[in-house]
């Protein structure tokens, strides 16, 4: 218990230190000696950005592009950035959350207390994003996060929509949007509107299980919900039997890649052949689709970012497609969706720092609130979000189809929810 108490104590100290600092700055406007000291300090100061992401562990695929993104951003920052008329070198300190919430909280504390970061960034799923944001909120350190459905981020941290959070800000889409995107796709192909649903028993699946079946019913779909499956499940016969009995022509769920591989193989063995399969989360990465073999063709999924998205990085001025092409050239690998969001998280933070009136926590926080920025994943501003700390980014529907250079390509097949993102091809029903 001792070690667990320590960070809290430290953060309390940090909070006090911040208060003292703010007081000192306030006093500085009155007292000349403090003013005299400041420039000497500023000369040697480096701006520090903390960057927490799952690079190892069960969701390491989300952190796969980190190195590429960090290299690109570091190159663009080689000359430092100007804050309030002065040039500062920038250091990005990258930490691995190991896909583990406890570890994520621990490294965030290191970034706050040992590295004294000016701003901390977190990305990819509740297990990393939420503890990073919570530690920053506690310590009064500005924090920007992305790549986690906003309800899981906001309500998962017991956020009160009336009050919101003070130090932590997030951009991504929400479960209401994903429900809409999925139904848009399903309505574009003839079927009997019976949906079988099954969700993983983790923060993402639990939140989806609470919201999605109701949303589907509200739009006239009938839903056979089997509830939450445990992550270690090896056998989906019972759920498949229930779907088959209800004659579900659509299967939707939140799955981990191995669980979906097992589920989909068993569907084949047990003669259950739906017309549409839309497993959220499981098929974001090309490797997960390739693992399904020929039966991966035609799977539908959510698309939060792709080379077809008509956005540009404000930092490097590259388009989405240029960044994907460069990624493939450098790493010999196919683009993945987190690529865009990792880059965007960093460029938004840099935009914020450039606009900050001074290099203290409160000024940086004010700059975050005032953000109005065109990023690689779309426009970012926190003034128009569903709650104070959330900015929505667009979401469209995609389908995996046999590709040219790689085994499968992700085609955007439905953009009713974000018409500025072009469609690559029309959606097809699964071959039975």
């Amino acid at each position: 218990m001792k070690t667990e108490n320590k960070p809290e104590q430290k953060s309390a100290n940090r909070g006090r230190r911040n208060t003292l600092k703010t007081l000192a700055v306030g006093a500085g406007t009155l007292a000349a000696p403090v003013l005299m000291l400041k420039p000497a300090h500023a000369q040697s100061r480096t701006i520090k950005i903390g960057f927490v992401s799952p690079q190892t562990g069960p969701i390491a695929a989300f952190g796969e592009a980190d190195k590429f993104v960090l290299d690109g951003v570091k190159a663009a920052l080689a000359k430092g950035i100007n804050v309030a008329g002065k040039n500062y070198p920038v250091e990005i300190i990258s930490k691995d959350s190991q896909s583990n919430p406890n570890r994520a909280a621990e490294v965030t504390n290191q970034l706050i207390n040992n590295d004294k970061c000016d701003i901390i960034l977190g990305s990819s799923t509740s297990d990393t994003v939420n503890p990073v944001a919570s530690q920053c909120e506690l310590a009064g350190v500005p924090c920007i996060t992305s790549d986690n459905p906003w309800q899981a981020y906001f309500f998962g941290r017991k956020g009160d929509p009336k009050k919101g959070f003070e130090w932590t800000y997030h951009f991504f889409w929400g479960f209401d949007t994903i429900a809409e995107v999925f139904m848009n796709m399903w309505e574009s192909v003839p079927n009997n509107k019976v949906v079988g649903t099954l969700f993983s028993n983790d923060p993402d699946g639990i939140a989806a299980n609470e919201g999605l079946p109701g949303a589907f019913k509200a739009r006239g779909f009938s839903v056979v919900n089997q509830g939450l499956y445990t992550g270690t499940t090896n056998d989906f016969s019972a759920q498949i039997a229930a779907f088959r009995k209800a004659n579900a022509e659509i299967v939707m769920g939140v799955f981990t890649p191995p669980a979906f591989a097992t589920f989909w193989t068993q569907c084949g063995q047990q003669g259950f052949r739906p017309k549409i399969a839309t497993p959220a989360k499981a098929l974001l990465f090309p490797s997960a689709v390739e693992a399904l073999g020929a039966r991966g063709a035609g799977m539908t999924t959510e698309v939060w970012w792709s080379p077809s998205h008509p956005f540009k990085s404000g930092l490097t001025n590259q388009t989405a497609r240029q960044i994907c092409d460069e990624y493939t050239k450098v790493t010999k690998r196919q683009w993945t969706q987190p690529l865009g969001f990792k880059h965007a998280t960093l460029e938004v933070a840099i935009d914020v720092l450039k606009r900050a009136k001074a290099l203290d926590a409160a000024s940086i926080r004010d700059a975050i609130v005032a953000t109005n920025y065109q990023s690689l994943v779309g426009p970012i501003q926190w003034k128009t979000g569903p709650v104070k700390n959330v900015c929505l980014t667009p979401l469209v529907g995609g389908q995996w189809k046999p590709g040219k250079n790689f085994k499968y390509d992700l085609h955007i097949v439905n953009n009713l929810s974000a018409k500025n993102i072009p469609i690559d091809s029309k959606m097809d029903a699964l071959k039975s």
Partner: protein
Amino acid sequence: MSWISDIDWAGVLIQGALIGGLYALFAIGLSLAFGIMRLVNIAHGDLIVLCAYVAMIVVNATGVHPLWSIAVVVPVMFVAGYLMQRSLLNFTLGPSILPPLLVTFGISVIIQNVLLEVFGADTRRLNAGAMETASITLPGDVTVGVFPLVIFSVALLSLGSLQYLLYRTKLGRAFRATSDDAGTAELVGINNRHLYCVAMGIAMAFTALAAVLFSIRTSFDPSSGAINLIFAFEAVIIGGLGSLWGTLVGGIILGVSQSLGGSVVGPLVSDLIGNPVAAQWQILTGHIVFIIVLIVKPDGLFPRIRD
């Protein structure tokens, strides 16, 4: 409650029993290592994943059907198991079971991270073509996958051959002697250290066999090991520590309980509380049965070992 009369009991029991075969196959290596050396191998799940990657290398290099990779992976892992025991695990064996527990925990962490470093976080799978989704229809309209049947048969064959090895051969007699009383076995000229290495080699050979079938059945990545460990442990403990056929019975009990949990207990609870929780009860029912067995028969159903 009309759904109760609709339950396809034969289907539920058969699917559950087939999953039990998978659990038993996972558990053989674990059971063997514990039965002979009292070694609790925490790295067992990660060793399965390691074997799956070795199989993947073989398949990618030669282009053969994944099942043929068994011919390479099994001998390779026998040697690897022998060397691992000789160079590392033998030093941890002693009156306390704690040192091997800690060392294998370390091995587990090392394997996961080395695999991630070398192969990346990608999800992988061995592709066995049409066999994966082929099925046969049994009388009573029960559809059973061919591949789960293959896994079950391999589990039976593996247990049968181990039974033969342990009870009909000289090596097996030495294993049993060492297991019963290591000190006395040494007095009559058995080289325990060497014997332990052979035992670990055999355990790893069966682990490799399980791994190839597992990597066709579902996809894997460097961190999928832990998921496989828990059911293997439960199968071994329900069946009785060190008992081979007990492991199969343990696996089947676990598989059938989960199957009943998903099709009967879960829907029943859902009806009672008016909330769809059927899938949640699948694994939970397995764990509950496991705990009941632990309470009623702490040594498992067929205990071979009495310390």
